[in-house]
């Protein structure tokens, strides 16, 4: 199987894992995980609580080291600096400063990552439904609005691969539709995304690749 994998060079493959495994105190969190993610493809990571979805996300983002197996980014072994700037990670902790407004938070992110062409900060905030709350400190926003403020990063910042850990959490019906719309637009731009969810996700833009987590 692995020989066949290496034989076909496929430039559309963005991310590939080979026999990826992670251990906590010698207990496997997950093991022998194989999947490939192509440009324009959505990967849906499924698994129960504690099955290692968040751990996998943190490994792929480069926050955790690889215990076992190999990770490839555009066909090259993944190194910390190679895919930096191409990956956008949205985790459980949203990375928003509570004392700053959504606009100020986005300005910091834009200052670090740069802005995607043809987007503006106010347009991004309007798109996620936060117009009118630009200057409100994040601490006064509701959990769903905080999530939307973090999602505005997806609209504003340039990235090829989105790693979204529980993007639907805390969101209302329109928020879930918003995430799906952002994902569809991103995939249409030849981006790729990995999404974790322990609930059921109804995604309309084609059938996502389902990646099942198991120990």
């Amino acid at each position: 199987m692995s020989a066949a994998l290496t034989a076909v060079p496929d430039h559309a493959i963005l991310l590939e894992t080979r026999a990826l495994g992670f251990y906590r105190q010698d207990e496997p969190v997950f093991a022998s995980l194989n999947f490939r993610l192509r440009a324009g493809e959505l990967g849906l990571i499924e698994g129960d609580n504690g099955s290692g979805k968040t751990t996998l996300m943190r490994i792929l983002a480069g926050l955790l080291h690889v215990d076992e197996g190999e990770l490839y980014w555009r066909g090259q072994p993944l190194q910390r600096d190679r895919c930096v700037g191409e990956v956008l990670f949205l985790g459980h902790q949203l990375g928003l400063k509570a004392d700053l407004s959504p606009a100020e938070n986005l300005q910091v992110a834009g200052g670090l990552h740069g802005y995607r062409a043809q987007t503006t900060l106010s347009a991004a905030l309007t798109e996620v439904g936060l117009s009118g709350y630009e200057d409100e400190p994040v601490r006064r926003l509701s959990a769903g609005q905080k999530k939307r403020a973090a999602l505005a990063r997806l609209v504003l910042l340039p990235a090829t691969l989105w790693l979204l850990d529980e993007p639907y959490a805390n969101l209302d019906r329109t928020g879930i539709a918003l995430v799906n719309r952002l994902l569809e637009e991103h995939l249409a731009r030849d981006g790729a995304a990995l999404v974790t969810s322990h609930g059921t996700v109804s995604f309309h833009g084609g059938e996502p690749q389902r990646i099942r987590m198991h120990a």
Partner: protein
Amino acid sequence: MSRPGLTTACAAMLRRDLTLAWRRRGDIAMPVLYALIVTMLFPFALGPEDTLLQRIAGGVVLVTILLAMLLALDAMFSSDIEDGSLEQLVLAPQPLALMLAMKILAHWLTTALPLIVISPLLAGMLHLPTSVMPVLMLALLLSTPMLSLLGAILVALTAGTRRSGMLLALMLLPLCVPVVIFAAGAVAASQQGLPWLAPIAWLGAALVLLLVLAPLACAAALRIALDA
């Protein structure tokens, strides 16, 4: 997909941390008030004898400012770790060490600089001769950044441990001994009319070394802290 330049990124970081500090300006006043009160206690405890107070003034001001900085040090990275900002910073396409250097600079500007500004007042309460004040300020300008940088390494190393505040003090204070010796040495030399440039030059040399190495050490320590 143009990546912003280093200047833009540094400015964004610096402005973020300064804005955050300004939103919580009460926290800036805390170390200043602490230093004022501690210095005020010395004349009460030792009696208002000019000669005695003059002799200890330089050392007392230095140690007080060191302890006051210690109060605020703990918070340098903790809120960023809690709300996930640090993860975002680590993943940003910018050199982490330089971004952390900006955070340390912002921290120094908001905690050490106010203390340096009130240091003539502190020294005045202990009857330090005004001719020595410039040397004291110079020694503080060189030694406080060193404390910020040393402290940042230790905060990064103890990030994620519980009750890190006390541990931090126990680890940082021994490292501060050389800094205090040279800074107080310069003040004492100037007070006695001796040349004081040599200890100041040593402080400067050590500061340059730390300026280069400390952000790199911080970056490595925080990456390890997140990888757990």
